[in-house]
């Protein structure tokens, strides 16, 4: 607990929480929403393609969308750290926050596996897509959905 109180009292945490400026808390919230739309939106494209929507799109060039997804994730890692630091002692122990972090980390693991095992495979478009890859695509969407639901509810369940 003392660590969480310390985190709140850091310059970063205090600025995000207490500054009257629209550049403090509101900007972190806006950035978090941008990052979300980038990561989840690109995941929708990649995930639905793996599950069979738009099968005429070759899989290999979708690998180029991953850096955009990682960019969105970096925005949310930064903005999320600010939001969590600002209210560390109340947010971090909240079971919904912990659930959200688990969903996010699992989704990130799925993204890494998809990128390395599926999209970087030079023969990915020469063979039918295996069930595992389709399941991973579906899991990615489900995990982001759960992360958004739990994340957005943190405000309402303290």
């Amino acid at each position, binding site marked *: 607990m003392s660590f969480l109180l310390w985190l709140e009292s850091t310059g970063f945490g205090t600025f995000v929480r207490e500054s009257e400026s629209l550049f403090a808390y509101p900007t972190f919230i806006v950035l978090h929403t941008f990052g979300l739309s980038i990561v989840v939106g*690109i995941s*929708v494209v990649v995930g639905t393609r793996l599950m069979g*929507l*738009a099968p005429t*799109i070759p899989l290999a060039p979708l690998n180029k969308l991953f850096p955009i997804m990682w960019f969105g994730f970096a925005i949310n890692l930064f903005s999320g750290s600010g939001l969590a630091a600002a209210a560390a002692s109340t947010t971090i122990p909240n079971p919904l926050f912990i659930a959200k972090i688990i969903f996010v980390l699992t989704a990130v693991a799925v993204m890494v596996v998809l990128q390395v095992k599926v999209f970087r495979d030079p023969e990915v478009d020469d063979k039918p897509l295996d069930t595992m890859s389709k399941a991973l695509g579906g899991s990615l969407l489900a995990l982001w959905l759960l992360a958004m639901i739990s994340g957005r509810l943190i405000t*309402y369940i303290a």
Partner: protein
Amino acid sequence: MDFFAWLDWIERTGFSTWLRESPSLLAFPSVIVLHTVGLAFLVGTNIAVDLRILGFASRIPLAPMERFFPVMWAGFWVNAASGVALLIAYPAKAFTDPVFYIKLLCIALGVTSIRMIQKQVFGDPSLDARAVPRKSKLLAGASLFFWIGAITAGRLLAYTATRFMAYD
């Protein structure tokens, strides 16, 4: 009936009161969650299509990306419905905030840009046979700009509102 009396009337309806005051997670929090999920599907998928038109990942054929438009429109309708519910919950809060009108304008322009992209860019049968025309890239850039504007204005509404109820 003047404007504030009308907003007050909305606030007193059963649906508005339930959304605002019910302790159930199915009330206000669910509407907010739906609005966030719809945003991710609408704006996120649109970002992917816009970036491809602008030249990112140019080895992805554009024509089959048309399949993602129904996903965008599904996100749009989820957000139109959840947005109307949020408006019914706090009508005075939105209608007295100039930022709300900026958000609506951005959405109107964003929706128009998506429709124009769907018709003009994806309606072209020679789409993948030649380079993306400059006009298509301008449309995609404008679309990104309007949706970024809509998200920024929309998310700031929580902080720019000065009045919460019609008669506070």
